[in-house]
């Protein structure tokens, strides 16, 4: 009897459609976000995350509309990330029915934004998304650095120190993505996940690289994550959320079935 580890399907939404890039190039259309969210809810998803990858500001209302539709019929926690830069952006998403927002590059360019957001809306709804990439050479002690702009721009910031700082500033949860693994289907960067998870007091969601169900279980058992996030393995109905949970349970992980 204890807290269940969470499975969080992630929907990358571009102009109101779910897409999934494979290594950031081949963007495949995976369908209507409301319909997909409904299916995940039925299959037992513990939460749903929407990542708005719409490039233009004009289309930002689209994601709010998607969240609003989903929130009126799906009663599990909803997180929205992508392009959250101001307190007004957060307010708009919470009003649309989101429970949490993911803050990524805005935290890097202005860490105080995380503090203000946590003070204004409460830590429980502030998820800081961290995109990290290994920068140490083989044989050296492992080191990961924060990257922005979809993994293209290094910042020189150490990932573990950054995660701790974000928790001090009020992050209620950390969404950790390995930019080395994202889109590869090779599994999470487990040493990175474990290093961050053991360094902070708040829950850590592992992300980036899931290609099969064992990867999800590894993220919890070896990566010590509190939740695992995946996109493509669920979108194309390769696996259902229920299958994922049953597999995790078979490896001794407590899940909500």
């Amino acid at each position, binding site marked *: *009897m*204890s*807290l*269940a580890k969470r499975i969080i399907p992630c929907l990358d939404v571009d102009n109101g459609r779910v897409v999934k890039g494979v290594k950031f190039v081949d963007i495949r259309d995976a369908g209507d976000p409301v319909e997909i969210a409904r299916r995940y809810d039925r299959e037992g998803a513990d939460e749903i995350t929407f990542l708005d990858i719409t490039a233009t500001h004009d289309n930002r209302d689209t994601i709010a509309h998607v969240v609003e539709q989903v*929130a009126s019929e799906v009663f*599990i926690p909803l997180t929205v990330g992508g392009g959250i830069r101001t307190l007004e952006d957060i307010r708009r998403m*919470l009003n649309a029915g989101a*429970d949490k927002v993911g803050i990524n590059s805005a935290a890097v360019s202005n860490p105080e934004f995380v503090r203000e957001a946590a003070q204004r809306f409460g830590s*429980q709804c502030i998820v800081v998304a961290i995109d990290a990439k290994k920068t140490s050479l083989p044989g050296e002690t492992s080191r990961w650095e924060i990257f922005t702009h979809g993994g293209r721009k290094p910042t020189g910031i150490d990932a573990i120190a950054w995660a701790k700082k974000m928790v001090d500033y009020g992050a*209620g949860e950390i969404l950790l993505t390995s930019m080395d693994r994202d889109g590869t289907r090779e599994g999470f960067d487990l040493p990175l996940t474990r290093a961050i998870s053991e360094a902070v007091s708040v829950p850590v969601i592992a992300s980036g690289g899931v290609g099969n169900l064992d990867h999800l279980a590894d993220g919890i058992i070896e990566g010590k994550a509190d939740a695992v996030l995946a996109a493509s393995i669920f979108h194309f109905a390769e696996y259902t959320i229920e299958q994922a949970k049953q597999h995790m349970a078979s490896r001794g992980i407590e899940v909500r079935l």
Partner: protein
Amino acid sequence: MSSVAVIDYGMGNLHSIVKALQHAAPEVEVVCVSDADSILRADRVVFPGVGAIRDCMQALNHSGLSAVIQQVAKSKPLLGICLGMQALLTDSEENGGTPCLDVFAGHVVRFPESLKDSDGNLLKIPHMGWNQVHQQQQHPLWENIPQDSRFYFVHSYYAQPDDAAITAATTQYPDAFTCALAQNNVFAVQFHPEKSQAVGLQLLKNFLHWDGQA
């Protein structure tokens, strides 16, 4: 048509709770209100809340809603959720000690630092996610909800009632703590029924049909 008032005192987003109440019982009129008259006129009252207790109590005291909630607690079915539950205790140790509404005799305390599970892994604070709710007494609000169902939690503080007899349910993290309180016409839960899928909607439905008797 019966009605339920969701108290809006500026602490957090009420969208989810309003939608969930509408979904749970479409025949009930759901209003989101901040004035005493509307709250006192409704058949039932939901008292939600997220954030820090000092801000919550300041908002309630400045708006005069503290006295209104205390009055509701003596007269009609009232459901406190999350911070709304905590505010119903005598006081909270959050923010250096904060006096609360004293509807339930008891205190609100923080989870200790460095909690470990049985495998020696660090337990994270906030306690966030789906955990099992063990019903400690029969109650109309538990109707059609299986024992040990999982509900969604997110909190760092929890209630410690003076009288264990008002504990309606407990959850383990890692030790058992009180996650639901029941006393006369008042029921309160630490978890979020509006985010707990089918079992959460069932609890809201039960509340919307509750006459306030245990």
